[in-house]
């Protein structure tokens, strides 16, 4: 509990520093202050990728060990991944309006593939929600959790496959195309988001463990008493 609190505090502090750093970067020539949104947009998407990778890892872990905690890890991480994807998508839309003149464009490979990514993981969460039995839920979700992660590289490389509005990766083996102060701010924000992810994930794990324990207690209460001796003297009226 205290470790979780500490993690939260550190993540919060890192976020404050990140925002402050974002405003130390010079405003971009064409986009003015809008360019600063990159400090939320990019870390969110990267953390979403990481979260979905953890979901896949958790799914593989469950398939090997059949240990429930792997399933909890997969499910919890997917929830946070969806949250970060939504943040990335929304910040992208806010950014796109002044820069490209549209909120959203179905023709842009990255936007479309990110929307698809979001939908698949929403479906993943829906599948978890609609399957009551924990064993069946873990079994089904693990399959989808492993298969769905294929999309992460697809989204990442979509800009290279189809040249459209969205810009290509700025960090490449042959060097960065960004201003150094921007890189610094971005890296700090990335660290802040990673801490935030870890904090949220531990909190979610804790809740999931408590939920499972509560379900187990309720289970014991539900046992027995379904069929009783008939009460043939009863009168039915009304």
């Amino acid at each position, binding site marked *: 509990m205290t470790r979780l609190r500490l993690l939260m505090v550190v993540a919060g502090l890192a976020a404050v520093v990140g925002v402050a750093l974002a405003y130390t970067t010079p405003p971009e020539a064409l986009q003015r202050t809008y360019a600063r949104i990159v400090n939320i947009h990019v870390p969110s998407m990267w953390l979403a990728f990481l979260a979905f990778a953890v979901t896949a890892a958790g799914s593989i872990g469950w398939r090997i060990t059949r240990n429930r905690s792997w399933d909890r890890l997969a499910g919890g991480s997917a929830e946070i991944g969806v949250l970060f994807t939504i943040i990335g998508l929304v910040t992208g839309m806010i950014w796109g309006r002044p820069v490209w003149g549209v909120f959203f464009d179905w023709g842009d490979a990255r936007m479309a593939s990110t929307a698809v990514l979001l939908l698949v993981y929403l479906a993943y969460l829906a599948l978890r929600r609609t399957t009551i039995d924990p064993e069946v839920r873990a079994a089904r979700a693990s399959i989808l959790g492993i298969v769905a992660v294929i999309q992460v590289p697809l989204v990442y490389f979509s800009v290279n496959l189809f040249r459209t509005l969205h810009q290509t990766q700025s960090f490449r083996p042959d060097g960065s195309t960004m201003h150094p102060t921007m890189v610094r701010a971005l890296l700090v924000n990335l660290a802040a988001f990673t801490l935030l992810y870890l904090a949220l994930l531990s909190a979610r794990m804790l809740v999931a463990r408590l939920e499972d324990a509560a379900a187990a207690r309720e289970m014991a209460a539900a046992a027995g*008493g379904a069929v009783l001796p*008939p*009460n*043939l003297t009863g*009168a*039915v009226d*009304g």
Partner: protein
Amino acid sequence: MSVLVQLEEVGVTIDLTPIIDRVSLEVSEGDCLAILGPNGVGKTTLLRLIATLITPSSGRGRVLGAALGSRAVLAVRDRIGLAGHFPALAGPLTLAENLRLVARLTGRGDGSVGAALDLVGLAGAADRTADQCSHGMRRRADLARLFLHPPQLLLLDEPHAGLDASAAPIVAELVRRVRNAAGAAVLVSHDLTGVGHLAARRLWLDAGRLEPSE
């Protein structure tokens, strides 16, 4: 003593297949008739005919005064109660919700639902959905419906199938209540176990024809 069911040389053909051939029978107030016969002989079909759910393709019949195949049956249907091979329950609804529908449609209060479930030993399972119940529990809930809205003409298709020993008295009690209230019961089964001691009369259905039993 008035006649509740009267069939005269009734025949039934479904999808061009003749299933029942010139059957005649009579059921009067207070009566309890057992119709026996082997698998596939037409017992269920005959029972559904009496329930006005199938119209005869030949012959004439009257049920609760209404001629079979006429509009008059619409007015007597609410006095006919049928429980068949498959319990009439909506799977996603709880047992209580299923019965509450019956109570409301027949102008009763919701209060009678609990009593009916208690009668068949399902007071503890009222909040389970029908899909979550065992086969025998669903059969019991189907009988509870007939306690809730007691018919004048009670039609039971293999009433004991799927029920354990402690549930047999439920069927007996249901038949007793209907007979006492100036009604009648027709029970269908392939053997005498269970229905034998309930029935005052027995008929044997064979190759689509009825014969007195024994």
